[in-house]
């Protein structure tokens, strides 16, 4: 699936629910499917520090595609990370750098995007793109 297709699928999945509680229940469930990071990477180097919940994100680059594993100490945040990874994992660095993540807005998680927001969603997206840029630079 393309990045666009994955995002559209997520939007469709969330559109089934009108109630905020149901949307958050879905997020909680999604958190359970998160490709969990190897505990040895749950260290400061891979920590994305938001104000309130911690996120660890680890990238692996096989020379073509980047895949991510992650974890968070808050369950809703874990769900949000799981969504991001769904969209961004197993993509080329160029794809990741160019990605426009419109699904966040569409499923009503926009409030989590503002720079002062505590779960650090913006930092996660930025970190994914930074990793992609770093791998790209190494390639060239």
């Amino acid at each position, binding site marked *: 699936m393309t990045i666009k297709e994955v995002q559209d699928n997520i939007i469709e999945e969330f559109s089934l629910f009108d109630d*905020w*509680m149901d949307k*958050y*229940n879905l997020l*909680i469930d999604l958190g359970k499917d998160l490709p969990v990071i190897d505990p040895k990477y749950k260290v400061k180097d891979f920590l994305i520090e938001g*104000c*309130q*919940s911690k996120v660890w994100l680890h990238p692996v680059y096989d020379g073509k595609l980047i895949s991510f594993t992650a974890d968070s*100490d*808050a*369950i*809703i*945040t874990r769900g949000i990370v799981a969504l991001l990874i769904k969209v961004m994992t197993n993509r080329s660095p160029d794809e990741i750098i160019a990605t426009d993540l419109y699904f966040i807005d569409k499923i009503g998680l926009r409030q989590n995007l503002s720079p002062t927001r*505590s*779960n650090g969603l913006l930092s996660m997206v930025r970190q994914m793109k930074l990793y992609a840029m770093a791998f790209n630079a190494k390639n060239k």
Partner: protein
Amino acid sequence: MKEIDEIRADFPILSRKVYGKPLVYFDNGATTQKPNCVLDAVDEVYKSYNGNIHRGVHFLSDMSSEAYENAREKVRSFINADKREEVVFTSGTTGSINGIAFSFGERYIKAGDEIILSRLEHHANIVPWQMMCERRGAVLLVIPINDNGEVMLDEYYKLLSSRTRLVSVTQASNALGTVLPLKEIITAAHSINVPVLIDGAQGIQHGIVDLKEMDCDFYVFSGHKIYGPAGIGVLYGKEKWLSEMPPFQGGGDMVDKVTFEKTTYNELPFKFEAGTMNYPAAIGLASALDYVSSIGRENIATREKELLIYATGRLSTIKGIKIYGNSEKKISTISFHIKDIHQYDTGMILDKMGIAVRTGTHCAQPVMDRFGIDGTVRASLCFYNTKEEIDTLADGIEKVKSMFA
């Protein structure tokens, strides 16, 4: 006292809905909502008599200046300060403490001097002192707290010495709600001629503050936490200190003091009010103080105590809840954690039920460290809240528990 429905009708925002649910506003420790009279007072400034204060000779400027100075007198009388010259307007508690820390440091602090704070302080009453201590080579000492979240007075007495230059403590902990034993703290410091600053940001809105009786040397608070507008705060200082301390706006060591002394604002309180002050907010604050007086400060204290007791009882019965801060003397703030559920998750779900609480460290990381936690959920109540709202919170917590079980 006014009936609760009448009181709530004074605050237009309280009747709004959030995500389709009636708003339950339990974040009063962060900021309080505003009654109509405050909104009207600020509106009136801009609509009818806006002019820069103390500047023009024209009608509007005169009218604004008069209203601003009346607001100062209103504050003076509300806190029962001696003189209006002792009441300086600032941007808020943070602005006030930064100002005092800078000016007091410049005037009185040298290497090896000591400043005493408590472990319960908000970052706003820690960082400005650290900055000052770094600049002057002084040392910060911290009064520890016990498991109930109360300052340990015996430890405090041990910290006081001939090196102590100032004690700066909060009236009540924003993170735990603990009310500090100010009388004991101030008396002990004064017995060795050490001045005391009281951070009233979480104190003044919950009861009577009488500075003649309290006898602190500095008292600071924010307008927006006592039903007034944001962007206005108060710095009270005894005249003997304020007259000796240099102004804090102008740039510290780079300031040519001779030039500073020649400025027109060299008398109290104006020497500390450089630039255009937020006079509409000061005028709004005066209206807020009138409103609080009209409800009655004893009434507010009584009602909030009832709410605290009810909320503490209600939350204590919920399995898995741990309340942090169990002092006998508390403002109506309850800090808690639900077993195995991250405070961020709790806050996000409560939000979707229309319940506004604060989560995280509450700008008081040393307090969280003391209890070995990385944050709590904080419900900070005030007199316009109701027992029904507390029930809604309790139900909300049960819902959170079921979702994350």
